[in-house]
């Protein structure tokens, strides 16, 4: 188990040694976002911009325009929220080669409460043209995603979490932008999940097996561009979809999957996520339970949707 932000810190520092065009920026959270690991190794290529996210985004765009590959990090609420219009204008519109790696996404920020829990960032990043949106499931996938983001020419938003998460993928797992991944095979329904919910879906699928329900688990590491083929295939083959994400059910993975299926393959579906509300203070595990972001909810939703199929 490792937090995706820790995997990011490692991966970025490693990439920094391979490519001297890579630079990093942070807004006074380098210890938490783990850009500090890079900063320690490459002090001249690290820019602490202070508590000023808007300027950080613009500065990254300027660095990209002179050939650098900037990785900028802060908490998701500040990266996507405070920096939204700067990301749109200075990064996405010109297709600048800037990587926004936002940590502390979702409600597992925990005790800091609703002000700091970003449940909208995937939606608002996804709405911007030219933007690629990645939400890894675990540390291993994060490493691959950071490497893929560095190799890709253009804007990328990567959303990471604060806490240690269970491993879903084996060491050396290959990450490809835009490609989803069937983690568990199944025929009765499909959990289409992202981030830390994929591990929960794997647990749920295992438990459902005992009840005679065969649940497929499709992990979507890239929310945009979405792997439509894999989503449609799952809908066609299993006839029921349950999406799950540590994010609002509006505009994120659930929204993206619903858009595709409504147009291409209408299928009964349920969206597990945060239902149009803000977060609140509490311990991460308490909050996951409080918001129903766990295997138990997925099992309930699976039973319900499979019964509707009949």
């Amino acid at each position, binding site marked *: 188990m490792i937090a995706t932000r820790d995997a990011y810190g490692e991966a970025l520092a490693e990439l920094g040694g391979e490519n001297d065009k890579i630079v990093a920026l942070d807004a006074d959270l380098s210890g938490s976002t783990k850009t500090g690991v890079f900063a320690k190794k490459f002090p001249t290529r690290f820019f602490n911009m202070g508590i000023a996210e808007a*300027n950080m985004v*613009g500065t990254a765009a300027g660095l990209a325009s*002179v050939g650098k590959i900037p990785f900028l990090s802060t908490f998701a609420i500040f990266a996507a929220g405070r920096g939204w219009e700067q990301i749109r204008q200075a990064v996405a*519109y010109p297709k600048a080669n800037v990587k926004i790696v936002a940590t502390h996404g979702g409600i597992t920020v925990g005790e800091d409460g609703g002000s700091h829990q970003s449940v909208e960032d995937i939606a608002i990043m996804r709405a911007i043209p030219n933007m690629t949106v990645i939400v890894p499931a675990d540390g291993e996938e994060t490493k691959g995603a950071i490497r893929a983001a560095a190799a890709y020419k253009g804007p990328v938003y990567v959303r990471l979490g604060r806490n240690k998460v269970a491993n879903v993928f084996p060491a050396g797992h290959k990450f490809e932008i835009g490609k989803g991944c069937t983690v568990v095979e199944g025929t009765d329904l499909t959990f289409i999940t992202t981030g830390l919910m994929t591990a929960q879906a794997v647990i749920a699928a295992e438990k459902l097996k005992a009840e005679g329900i065969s649940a497929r688990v499709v992990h979507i590491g890239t929310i945009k561009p979405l792997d439509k083929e894999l989503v449609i295939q799952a809908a066609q083959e299993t006839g029921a979809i349950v999406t799950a994400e540590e994010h609002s059910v509006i505009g994120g993975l659930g929204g993206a999957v619903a858009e595709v299926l409504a147009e291409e393959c209408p299928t009964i579906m349920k969206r597990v996520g945060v239902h149009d509300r803000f977060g609140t203070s509490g311990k991460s595990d308490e909050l996951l339970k409080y918001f129903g972001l766990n295997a138990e909810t997925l099992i309930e939703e699976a039973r319900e949707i499979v019964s509707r199929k009949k």
Partner: protein
Amino acid sequence: MKEKIADLEEKARRLRVSIVKTLHKSQSGHTGGSLSAIDMVCALYFHKMRHNPEEPSWDGRDRFVLSKGHAAPALYVTLAECGYFPAEDLMMLRRLGSHLQGHPDSKGTPGVDVCTGSLGQGLSMANGMALGLKLDGKENRVYAVLGDGELQEGQIWEAAMAAAHYKSDNLCALIDSNGLQIDGEVSKVMNVASISDKFKAFGWHVIEIDGHDMGQIVKALDEAETLKGAPTAIVAKTVKGKGVHLFENKASYHGVTPNDEELPEALRCLGCCD
């Protein structure tokens, strides 16, 4: 030197003519702010900056950021005059399919390095360029033209703080202080005075000039290059709509273009007989 200044003045006059003609044709765009900034843009492209119109992405070029992106016509006529693209393109300003967008767009226009137009963001981009160039040990300089109304954006001051913090002496901001913004006088809408004192307080070198006196512009740009340890702000007092009395000092001419009746008089003011 005197001859050089006279040449630049004549160049600026011709660019003004081009701005007026371009905006008359497009019937959409920002006249006042383009005419207030043009002398500085002219001095940058024809006196100060290292650049190569034959090779817009030449590695050895200095960088230019038009933070007040609505003055795009001033940049476009200058780039056309330099030869970055054919002058005929100007007649397509703001039209569907044209590379000359309403505000500068690096994706389509040769010689434009960043997208600007949403006010307050250009100085941050210039900052990033300056940091990147320094990191590579390059001596290239970065110039950003800002509006005075634009200084109301908080991001400008985040950028001002950061540029001084990183001692970006390869960065020079030119403030086109024409005193007017869409809703009226800058001092009445949201007073930004004293611009010089603010930049000084943020740790910048400050040079005050008359932004329409070509001699002063050239001198300030030359001096800025010698100032080390901090970025330089050239605070230029300008007149919105400068050169055409019909448009001068009129906030109402911010986003208005010359009409058919005004065109002959505007061109006459600019000493243009054709």
